[in-house]
């Protein structure tokens, strides 16, 4: 039995981070909101650092519901795209340099998005994670949750349905 020698850890990490970076930095609106992603293996945590321009109610003050919704939607799309591309990242089929140069793979399109506001968003950093509930050939369903100081006290959750990009190109 011959066994392929595993790639060095640094090569794998560099490839994963390069793809994630291309996916995130290629989308202007993600940059506009200042969102970045922390990666641990294949697990992603979206981070939206607090900024004054994310405020929706200056009296409370509280984050704008639209900013929270957009944060969840970005988390859902990036999370779903990431899981969709994972196989190709691991096999090395996906060229991160090509992606960074603007040759992005086709990404899922949002069909519907339902957000529930659970607590008012405070003027501080927010975090979110996506869970791909179901991912099929044509459609996918993703659940996302956002929190701030306490993971057990989410500020909002959302369910989104996506149309997957056609595989035949």
């Amino acid at each position, binding site marked *: 039995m011959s066994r392929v020698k595993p790639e060095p850890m640094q090569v794998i990490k560099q490839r994963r981070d390069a793809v994630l970076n291309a996916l995130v930095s*290629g*989308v*202007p*609106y*993600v*940059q*506009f*909101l200042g969102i970045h992603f922390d990666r641990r293996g294949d697990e992603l945590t979206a981070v939206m650092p607090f900024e*004054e*321009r*994310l*405020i*929706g*109610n*200056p009296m409370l003050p509280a*984050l*704008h*519901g*639209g*900013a929270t*919704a*957009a*944060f969840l*939607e*970005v988390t859902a*799309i990036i999370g779903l795209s990431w899981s969709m591309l994972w196989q190709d990242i691991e096999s090395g089929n996906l060229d991160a340099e090509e992606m960074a140069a*603007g040759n*992005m793979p*086709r*990404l899922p*399109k*949002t*069909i*519907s*998005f*339902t*957000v*529930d*506001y659970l607590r*008012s968003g405070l003027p501080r950093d927010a975090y979110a994670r996506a869970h791909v509930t179901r991912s099929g050939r044509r459609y996918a369903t993703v659940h996302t949750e956002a929190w701030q100081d306490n993971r057990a006290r989410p500020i909002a959750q959302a369910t989104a349905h996506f149309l997957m990009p056609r595989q035949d190109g």
Partner: protein
Amino acid sequence: MDINQTKIAKQFIEAIPHSQALGMKLASVSKGTAEMTMDYNKQFVGDPATGVIHGGAVSALMDTCCGTAVMSHPSSPTSTATIDLRIDYMRPATPGQRITAIAECYHITRSVAFVRARAIDEDADRPVATATGTFTVEGK
């Protein structure tokens, strides 16, 4: 709402930091309905290959417009917050075109307001997105 109240509402909405950041403008507001616009901006693009605006920016516009419709309801709530909002995306907004949201608060109780909205670009006959939501009602 008379012209003076509309002017106050306009100043109030357009002073919200996030609405300002997205360049939202209040076009009209009256008795439970509101119309808001958001100009095309390359910073709001969600798909760099096509230049189509990110759904999140459309969501933010719809949410603000729905909240404004609630506040303008004749029963005059003192404040409101979104409970939930569902958005259906019919088609991508045409790149370069301004997006307009039109919201209507069609029912209100002591504690909950029910709202529906639609978003269009310059082709008003083919909606870009529709939304339905519920909002809290304070101080009625």
